[in-house]
């Protein structure tokens, strides 16, 4: 059935093309016939007007997209401190692009229309003009100099973290196909870690001989206190991943064998973001779409979709394998008090691992003690990923 439909569509398309050539042929009536595969005045006329039409099409497409999709881009309502600067720079660049695009496309297509060829017309012999060349070299230079300076100023602010500042360290840990996070605990210092220490519940490979590691806390949902600068230390255990937090204008790759870093200060709690007018509108729009889809699903006898509530997300944005498309972690931004309460309920890593070992020990120790000892032994001569 589908193939029949496809066949019909193909045949119809063929007929459409054939008809279209007929239209072009009709424009040829009265034209000179010497070599009809070279554009003549009629072709120039038709295509000149089409060029003008195409200019209108570009402008209309732009307007249509801005009106219809204009509130999709993340260019306002950022949830981090540096996000305001980011959005600002984005707006400046976008407006600049919009102006240049409108002017140059206008000139290009208008010239193509205006100077469409006509038998007997003669083109202007105009090969060089140093002044013009100079003008359109120097204008981009000035504009770009401005953009580069603003860009580098923002980049430096974002990427170079002031060591003196009061920050909180959090480790983001990526693996196929999920995220985990580790808080530094009371000492605000993450214990050393390496994949070679991975064993049992110690899924992050934390080095338990490091005193800094004892009070670390491992979680699978990221909570952040609002208004505090968070320095993320990122690791990956298998392939490249990228920690992408679009609402915070934050992204950094997670690279096996090294620790990468990105820092930002969240400025809006999850609740504040949910109640912001932009987000209320977006969520309503999404829920409308989901309701429609649910109706279709229910009609087919399948389960309806849940209604959507906004949450900040951490997405993987570097191709990492078959389930790359579904590697996410929820982020909750909350008040400092709520955050402290949440974190205090999480057990410290040193204790978790000790308990797990204790539970396991009586069962395995008697059976295969030698093998067990072997597995725990780690080659200490090998370089370990240093986690501050």
């Amino acid at each position: 059935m589908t193939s029949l439909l496809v066949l019909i569509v193909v045949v119809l398309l063929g007929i459409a093309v054939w008809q279209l050539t007929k239209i072009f042929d009709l424009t040829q009536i009265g034209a000179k016939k010497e070599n009809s595969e070279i554009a003549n005045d009629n072709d120039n006329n038709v295509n000149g007007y089409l060029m003008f039409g195409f200019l209108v099409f570009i402008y209309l497409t732009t307007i249509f997209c801005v009106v219809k999709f204009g509130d999709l881009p993340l260019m306002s309502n950022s949830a981090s401190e540096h996000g305001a600067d980011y959005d600002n720079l984005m707006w400046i660049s976008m407006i600049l692009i919009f102006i240049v695009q409108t002017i140059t496309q206008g000139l290009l297509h208008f010239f193509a229309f205006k100077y469409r060829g006509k038998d007997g017309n003669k083109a202007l012999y105009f090969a060089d003009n140093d002044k013009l060349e100079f003008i359109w070299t120097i204008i981009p230079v000035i504009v770009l100099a401005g953009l580069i300076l603003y860009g580098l100023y923002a980049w430096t602010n974002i990427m170079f973290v002031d060591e003196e500042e009061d920050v909180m360290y959090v480790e983001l840990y990526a693996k196929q196909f999920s995220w985990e996070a580790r808080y530094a605990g009371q000492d605000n210092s993450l214990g050393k870690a390496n994949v070679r220490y991975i064993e049992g519940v110690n899924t992050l490979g934390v080095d338990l001989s490091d005193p800094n590691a004892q009070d670390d806390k491992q979680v699978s949902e990221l909570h952040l206190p609002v208004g505090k600068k968070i320095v993320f230390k990122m690791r990956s255990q298998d392939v490249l991943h990228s920690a992408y937090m679009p609402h915070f204008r934050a992204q950094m790759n997670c690279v096996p064998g090294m620790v990468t870093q990105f820092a930002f200060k969240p400025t809006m709690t999850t609740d504040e973001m949910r109640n912001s007018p932009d987000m209320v509108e977006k969520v309503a729009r999404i829920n409308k779409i989901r309701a429609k889809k649910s109706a279709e699903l229910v009609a087919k006898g399948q389960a309806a979709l849940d209604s959507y509530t906004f949450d900040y997300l951490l997405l993987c944005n570097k191709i990492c394998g078959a389930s790359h498309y579904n590697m996410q972690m929820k982020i909750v931004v909350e008040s400092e008090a709520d955050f402290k309460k949440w974190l205090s309920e999480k057990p410290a890593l040193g204790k978790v691992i000790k308990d797990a070992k204790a539970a396991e020990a009586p069962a395995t120790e008697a059976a295969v003690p030698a093998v067990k000892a072997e597995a725990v032994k780690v080659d200490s001569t090998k370089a370990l990923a240093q986690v501050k």
Partner: protein
Amino acid sequence: MSAVGHDLSHDHGHDHEHHHKDTFITKYIFSIDHKMIAKQYLITGLLMGIIGVGMSLLFRMQIAWPEESFGVFKFFLGEKMAPGGVMKNDAYLALVTIHGTIMVFFVLTAGLSGTFSNLLIPLQIGARDMASGFMNMISYWMFFISTVIMLCSLFVESGPASAGWTIYPPLSALPQAIPGSGTGMTLWLVSMAIFIASSLMGSLNYIVTVINLRTKGMSMTRLPLTIWTFFVTAIIGVVSFPVLLSAALLLIFDRSFGTSFFLSDIFISGEVLHYQGGSPVLFEHLFWFLGHPEVYIVILPAMGIVSEILATNSRKPIFGYRAMIASVLAIAFLSTIVWGHHMFISGMNPFLGSVFTFTTLLIAIPSAVKAFNWITTLWKGNLQLNPGMLFSIGMVSTFITGGLTGIILGDSTLDINVHDTYFVIAHFHLVMGISALYGFFAGVYHWFPKMFGRMLNKNLGYIHFWVTAVCAYGVFFPMHFIGMAGLPRRYYTNTAFPLFDDLADVNVLITVFALVGAAFQLVFIWNFFYSIFYGKKATQNPWRSTTLEWTTPVEHIHGNWPGEIPHVHRWAYDYSKPGHDEDFVPQTVPYKEGEEQLHH
């Protein structure tokens, strides 16, 4: 002069005897004639293009209608990759990867540069053939072998390479991480190594030919811009392709011999691997040291072709010839020091990010100069809107639209949030994909009479252009918006994130435009193959052009010119020069007494 040239200089006059010497095999298969090799590149490139675009349609359908069952999936992907007609997620990644590889390397590098460098360099500089016809033949056949190996990799049991066309390790190094990184990846690397060797041989040939075999009077400043761009492209290729080869070799070592160039501290499938001390970031540096110049390898020949066609069909000199050369050289130089803008958030030192932002945004200056010069070339012209001309104007248009968003992606700060999203896809498909493709189509429409002695049907050409132009915008313009909404690329489906539910409609729109646009490429394919045999016979100089290739006979002969090679007396752009009756003065016409001279 090569043996071929020598042979032919006293061969003219008894052509029929010459035909006896050419067997089918030496004429059509193992030909050392640059014109035949150009056609071989063109047709191979076209076939690869059909496969590459076809793949993109399959995965576009999956994005628009996620996890739905389609007969075409079942037909093309089989029960293993699309059980019940539903595309599997690793099949999706495989399609994305091979689509990228085929389009970037086989279609836009070999198909574009290989075709037109081979065809035009000897014809436009006035040479009997390439400096080494034999090496040229080897170059084509190695390219052919590499395409065959790449296609074979589609059929291996564990599937073709699926780590993205950028093949970042560790994903590309570990079959445990993705099945495509088994035999499929090995074949990918072998294919690419052979392709690089082919590309190097071609490039060396182009460089040597342009430097040594120009006819009398053809100084460097009289060369058509096509030759300048092919020449500079070849230099970039020679500088950067070997670096990719070294990266591929080191990756082969890591994969097969247990070295640790790119791998370190990996725990996968429940075990720690022995790799220690390598860095995936090193691979990214090596890859993009080629990868970025590569986009200029793709776009520069298109720029040259477009410059030539715009001038010819505007009946005007190209505006700012010297500025055009200077900008090509500037782009070529800068292209080798901007690779880091693909790696702003790779974990490299942020200070490097600052440096690469600076160099990257600089490249906008020569690009802007080129765009303004093209537009000025149209001004007060007498535009002959042939299909080739339409595609050239279209190329300027898409180059501007796509290029402008480069100032966002090239800015390390702004890159943070749009890196690896659909915004990037929209940007590079417009600025190097569609633009280079338009350059390719423009070249085919313009030089088809030179290649096959027949004309392409212009009305089919017009339909081809206008539908393609509308669909290209329809596909890639809305993509900017979903990219800025934070939609990551290479997602098998976006349904795992309700956050992206309001982008689903946009994705359907994009896919519909893609399907229609691709369907109309069949018009071109039909026109192309039909016209080879049944097109209208071409005259010697159908576009009334000034350059040397149109002084050769319509019927191809070894050695290009039956008599002596013509001498050149003027630059390539004397269109509508005052004081001449015709609106073009071929390069072979000597200056009149007292005539103003441009470019000695």
